[in-house]
Structure formats: C-alpha cells, structure tokens
C-alpha cells in the first residue's frame, strides 16, 4: 500500500514537472521578439520623392510574420539610416508582427529590402534581403 502511494506520488511529480516545463516553454516561446538595433534616421531636408513598387515582394524576418509588399503601392523616401534608405508606405500598412506589433518602414540597399525601420522604437530589424522593383514615380 505504501509502495503504491509512492509510485502514485512519483507519477504525479513527473506530470507536474512535464507541465511546468511545457508552461515555461510556452510562455518563453510566446514572448520571443525580434532583434532590434537602434538607428538614427537622417531625414531628407525636404519632402522626399514618391516611388512605386512595380512587382510584389515577400519580406521575411526572424520571429515575425512574412510581409507581402503589394504591387503598385506607393512609397515615400524619408531619409536614411546607417543600413540603407528608408521608405514609408503610403497606401499599405507594414508592420513587424510578432508577439507585439510595430509599425514599420522598409529599408532598402542596392535594390534590395534588407530590413525594417521602426519609427516608434527608432530601431532597425534585419530581414532576409529580397530584390524589389521600386522606381521613382513617372520613371
């Protein structure tokens, strides 16, 4: 009888441990956020030129949802950060969407989107480089 009691207690303990490990895993997994690097935006002295995206593109970054940049959307050149030029979307909302959500602009270098600029956090989030067809309006 005593033995049976110990076996039962042992099983409960194992279950409790498994539950706790899962709970910790779940909670820590939920709060994984993207890596951000502080960056200072150097804005253009005047309002920047308007650009148009001529083909759609998918931007992937770690721990956040993939963002589809839609064809024919418009973008305004705001200025630059150390990593590249910063374009603000005019007719599409772009967010870095993980556990929390952050409004984002795209950062472009040598014809590729290389990440996001978060205007609230004044930070850069790296993405897998993806080529985009962004041309100044009228070109």
């Amino acid at each position, binding site marked *: 009888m005593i033995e049976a009691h110990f076996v039962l207690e042992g099983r409960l303990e194992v279950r409790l441990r498994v539950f706790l490990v899962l*709970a910790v895993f*779940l*909670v820590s997994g*939920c*709060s994984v956020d993207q890596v951000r690097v502080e960056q200072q935006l150097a804005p253009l002295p005047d309002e920047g030129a308007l650009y148009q995206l001529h083909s759609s593109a998918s931007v992937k970054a770690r721990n956040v949802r993939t963002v589809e940049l839609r064809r024919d959307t418009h973008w305004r050149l705001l200025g630059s950060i150390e990593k590249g030029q910063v374009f603000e979307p005019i007719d*599409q*909302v772009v*967010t870095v*969407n993980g*556990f*929390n*959500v*952050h*409004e984002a602009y795209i950062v472009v270098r040598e014809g590729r989107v290389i990440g996001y600029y*978060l*205007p*609230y*956090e004044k930070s850069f989030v790296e993405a897998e480089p993806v080529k985009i067809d962004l041309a100044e309006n009228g070109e």
Partner: protein
Amino acid sequence: MKYKMQFILAAIIIVAVSGCASGPGFREYESSIPPLTEDAGRIYMYRTSALGAAIQPKVKVNGEEVGKAAPQGFFFVDLPPGEYEISASTEAKRSLTMTLDEGEIRYIRLEIKMGLFAGHIKPVLVDDSVGREQIVDTKYIGD
C-alpha cells in the same frame, strides 16, 4: 439528459451574447461622429470576433485608458500627431507601436489570441480599406 444539454447550450449562448457590444451599429452611428479637427489624427479601434466574450481588457494609449476591447464593438480616439503605444493586458500585455499624422485616420483591429490561462487581446494596425470594411459590422461602445 436531453434537457440538461439544452440548458447548457442556452446558458452558453446567453453568456456569449451578453458579453457583446450593444450600442448603435457603425452605419447608424457614423453620422454622429464629429469631424476631425485640423490639429489631430483619429484612431478607430474595433473587435470583430465574439470569441472569448468574457475577456474585455482595458485598451490604453501611452498608458492612459481610452476604452475596452468589447466583442463586436468599436470606439475612436482623436489625438495630436505623434508616436503612440496601444496596449491591452490580461495575463500578458500585448502592444502596438505606431505613428499618427495630422488629419490621418487609422484602424486598429483588436484580435483575441490564445494564452496560457486566459486569452490575450492583440492590437493590430490594418490597412484603411480593411478597417473601413470590417468596422461596419461592429457597434459603438464609446462614452
């Protein structure tokens, strides 16, 4: 047994419906919404889903309470241009950081997400066209 099941089902429906917003619908209320002043922007916040009706946390803008996340409800806030953090807390705080320009109108959908012990409300910035389309199915819960 049959009556017991019917009673349980009725109780579930009453609880679900009683948790939903009960004000005027967006289309009905739209004409009462004041025009935006020159020096402000407007943020509409709405929740389309009736799932997790018992979970209705306060919605805060930069830490100040502005409304609550009632199922199928909407409200709006007019704010000076700037940078804002919109948040809702249950067992965990979920937030959205964004900017607001003068004369700009933005839409935030309050989504219910699964949590460990209780659901979370996640504020998500959506395209204007999506917000305008979805908000018409909600009811005013401001004031």
